[in-house]
């Protein structure tokens, strides 16, 4: 019954995306966009329930069976990602109702909704698809769409940022394509499951080719998901994009590529091959360096959104760190971190965007006393920040805990230091903002309580996200065990 839902989700999103421009009115765009997202959300939840009950399954798209036709592989992880993506994008779309007008000219608003639906659809395609080339196509679609939602705001910084993003991400997808070509030349297959079978049998003769392929995938997807030294496009794009776009970009876009990478490591090559190659060491190293360096760079920033953007680099470092550990627990921790970061960072970007929108001040030093002007927004920002710092009962703490457990299970206790130093560094840049916001007394003078605050109704979407953060903090065990249950299906 639920088998076909993933395809329907993607189709609904794509069709709605292209339906939006047909209507000129912004209102229609919103109705269509959001209702499509809503339908998809419901469907994805149903899918997840089904998968949870009956286990992973393959879904044939079109008329041909696996080696020739395209298949979707839906396991618990994919189902979870579907729900995550749809929930966050739903919240962001909801929020955009109140905020996007501020950033965009009227003409561009429908375009924004088109692009968002296109983006989310293609990201889900990347997550669901079991066909490498199909993934590549979705990657390219998502590249264009994500550049689109950056550049939809017509400022020169945005254009430059989008151009940078576009060039780097198309380079990345070029490498991915090259990798696909190599794998294809070795195996003659594009379906992940089939490639895996073939690769295992030919591995001894062609290990070098595989190395190059996997290296190309690592760098190619690394660029797209902002693995540390390749993150250069990220701060610009995330900083200048409208708040809703930033939230989507950091919460979802980065994550889809990571999921693809996980699939390539685990489904395409399989741990039996990857375990032999030193590739995970690179991922681990870059992840660890990213955790520290991202935070250090964030400390140096003066612009609030830019700081949050650099924080994303650090948080993605965690994800790669988890993958790089190469253990089940590490992977589970990485996937948990994807959830944590998606909720937290979107809440942070939306609240930071609100502050920017309402006060017009983008520098941290100008934001002293903002806690008085916008107490609720600032409270949301505070919870988000604290989650990333690792205050218990918020999801960030659980995530860190999972990493720590994973590190110990992998017998690499020394890496605990990296996890903890990084979280300490997080404190170094989130706390000053919070402190200045609430306690920068001298600048509280003349501020009027709640004078620039958004109405509570407009904050509701962010509050939903924050509730997610708290939920995963308080009862993170359920999610983690779900993820752990889903991981075998990846292999």
């Amino acid at each position, binding site marked *: 019954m639920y088998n076909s839902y993933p395809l329907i989700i993607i189709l609904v999103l794509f069709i709605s995306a292209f339906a939006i421009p047909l209507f000129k009115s912004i209102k229609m765009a919103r109705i269509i966009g959001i209702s499509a997202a809503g339908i998809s959300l419901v469907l994805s939840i149903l899918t997840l329930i089904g998968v949870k009950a009956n286990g992973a399954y393959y879904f044939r798209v079109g008329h041909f069976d696996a080696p020739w036709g395209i298949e979707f592989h839906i396991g618990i992880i994919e189902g979870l990602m579907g729900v995550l993506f749809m929930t966050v994008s739903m919240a962001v779309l909801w929020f955009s109702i109140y905020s996007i007008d501020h950033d965009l000219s009227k003409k561009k608003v429908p375009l924004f909704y088109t692009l968002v639906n296109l983006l989310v659809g293609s990201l889900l395609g990347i997550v669901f698809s079991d066909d490498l080339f199909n993934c590549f196509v979705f990657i390219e679609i998502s590249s264009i769409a994500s550049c689109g939602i950056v550049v939809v705001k017509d400022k020169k910084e945005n254009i430059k940022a989008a151009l940078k993003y576009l060039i780097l991400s198309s380079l990345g997808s070029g490498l991915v394509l090259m990798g696909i070509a190599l794998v294809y030349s070795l195996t003659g297959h594009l379906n992940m499951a089939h490639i895996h079978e073939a690769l295992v049998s030919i591995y001894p003769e062609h290990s070098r080719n595989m190395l190059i392929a996997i290296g190309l995938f690592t760098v190619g997807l690394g660029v797209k998901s902002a693995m540390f030294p390749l993150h250069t496009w990220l701060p610009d794009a995330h900083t200048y994009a409208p708040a809703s776009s930033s939230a989507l970009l950091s919460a979802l876009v980065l994550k889809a590529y990571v999921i693809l990478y996980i699939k390539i490591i685990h489904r395409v090559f399989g741990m039996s091959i990857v375990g032999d190659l030193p590739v995970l060491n690179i991922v681990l190293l870059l992840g660890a360096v990213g955790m520290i360096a991202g935070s250090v760079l964030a400390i140096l920033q003066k612009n609030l959104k830019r700081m949050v953007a650099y924080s994303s680099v650090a948080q993605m470092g965690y994800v790669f760190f988890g993958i790089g550990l190469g253990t089940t627990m590490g992977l589970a921790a990485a996937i948990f971190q994807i959830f944590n970061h998606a909720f937290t960072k979107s809440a942070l970007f939306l609240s930071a965007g609100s502050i920017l929108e309402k006060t017009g001040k983008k520098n941290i030093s100008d934001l002293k006393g903002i806690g008085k002007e916008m107490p609720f927004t600032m409270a949301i920002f505070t919870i988000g920040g604290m989650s990333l710092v690792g*205050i*218990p009962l918020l999801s960030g703490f659980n995530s860190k805990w999972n990493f720590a457990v994973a590190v110990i299970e992998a017998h690499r*206790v020394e890496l605990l230091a990296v996890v903890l130093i990084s979280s300490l560094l997080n404190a170094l840049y989130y706390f000053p903002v919070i402190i200045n916001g609430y306690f920068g*007394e001298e600048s509280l003078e003349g501020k009027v309580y709640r004078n620039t605050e958004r109405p509570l109704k407009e904050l509701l979407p962010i509050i939903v996200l924050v509730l997610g953060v708290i939920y995963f903090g308080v009862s993170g065990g359920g999610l983690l065990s779900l993820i752990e249950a889903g991981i075998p299906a990846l292999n």
Partner: protein
Amino acid sequence: MNFLALVPIAFPMALAVGMHFVEFKNESYKRAYLLGGVFLNFIFAMMVIFVANPEMHIFKINDFMEIYFKVDGMSKLFITMTSILWIFTTAYSFDYMHHEGKEQKFFTYFLVTYGVIVGISLAGNIFTFYIFYEFLTLSTFPLVIHTGTKEALASGKKYLIYSFSGATLVLLGMILLFSVTGTLDFVPGGILEGVAINNRVTAAYVILFLGFSVKAAMVPFHSWLPAAMVAPTPVSSLLHAVAVVKSGIFALIRITFYLFGAEAVNAMHVRGYLSILVALTILMGSFVALHQENLKKRLAYSTISQLGYIMLGILLLNEDGLTGALLHLINHAVIKITLFFCVGIIMLRTGYKTIGEIRGIGKKMPITMGCFSIASISLIGIPPTNGFVSKWFLAMGGLQENRAIFVVILLVSAILTAAYLMPIVITAFFPGEMGKELENSEPPLMMLIPVVVLTGITVAFGLFPNFILHFIQGISRSLIG
């Protein structure tokens, strides 16, 4: 009745919310609200101690993360101490904060901190403890930077950095320990049964010890404490002589005797290194206190030194040492809060902050300075005050370990304590020729009563320590052999 433990934790926080939003028409309404609330919570806390189920599992996130409260001897001790001192401080704060300003904000966070402290004392495993420990940092931070000056903000920053670094170490230690034991509950005698003492366990202990010792102001992690003295006096007294630093000490006791157990710690051979740090703490605090002109700073360094005594008592790992440590935990709280209150009264009534300025103040404030003198004597460890009793047990503990050097350190530090406290008393009472005429005299009754009662407790505990002593000896006997 599982959730009864949450009442004394949540009730002050609810009061704080009320404090934040309600505008009181009348000063006395506010006072009644606060004092009544704090007192009521004291009763709740007593109820939890005496009535409630001793084990309260609230909810469980996973194996590691479980919110779990437990009432045992240590929590009874700590919760009673803090609750009683909280009542006094509340009474004291009214007039003081009226003068300082921003009362509403102060009392809001003040109440929140109360709830957090109750949580700390009731925590049944180190995870729950850790949560409240972090919240303690967060809820006291606004109090530290209460004045909002640049200096206050800088100190607040220092406080946060130190606290979070410590908490990070704690987390690291917890993880390491958990990886060995698989449980983190506080059990008398430790949870290491059947676990070999390997490097990882040792590392976990050292890291946990160092992490918690940040709050307990051990050298070299102490410098947030003197800096935090920019806070208003009630904050300095309650938080930095009682609640915050003592929660660090409390944590050290918990980890040493309830997680690792005395035997295991003894087997680790790291005590020597830690006790060097502790000895340094004692001497450093005393020596540097001698050099401080600012009264509160002097007391802050004195606190550092006295906390060293307690940590020493913990590290001795014998019954007398632990008894001394626990006694000093309480006695030092009572003494130091009295001293701070007196200094606060001086600052409030005259605005003087340094020793040079308070010449002859004893003539105008004989009761305040009299209490200060008695508390000073007690801190030096002169009988028949409570300071002597705890020092006695600490020294006995030290001698049992054949470490006469510790006793010598204790006594040298006691002499230094005299050297930095007695001049205050002397200049206050015997100004000599240079005494000035002061206009202000004794403070309002609301401030004076806590000081006098606390001084009374100081002497009473010195004369009749047995009631509390037997209770504490019961605890330490159950923990050691």
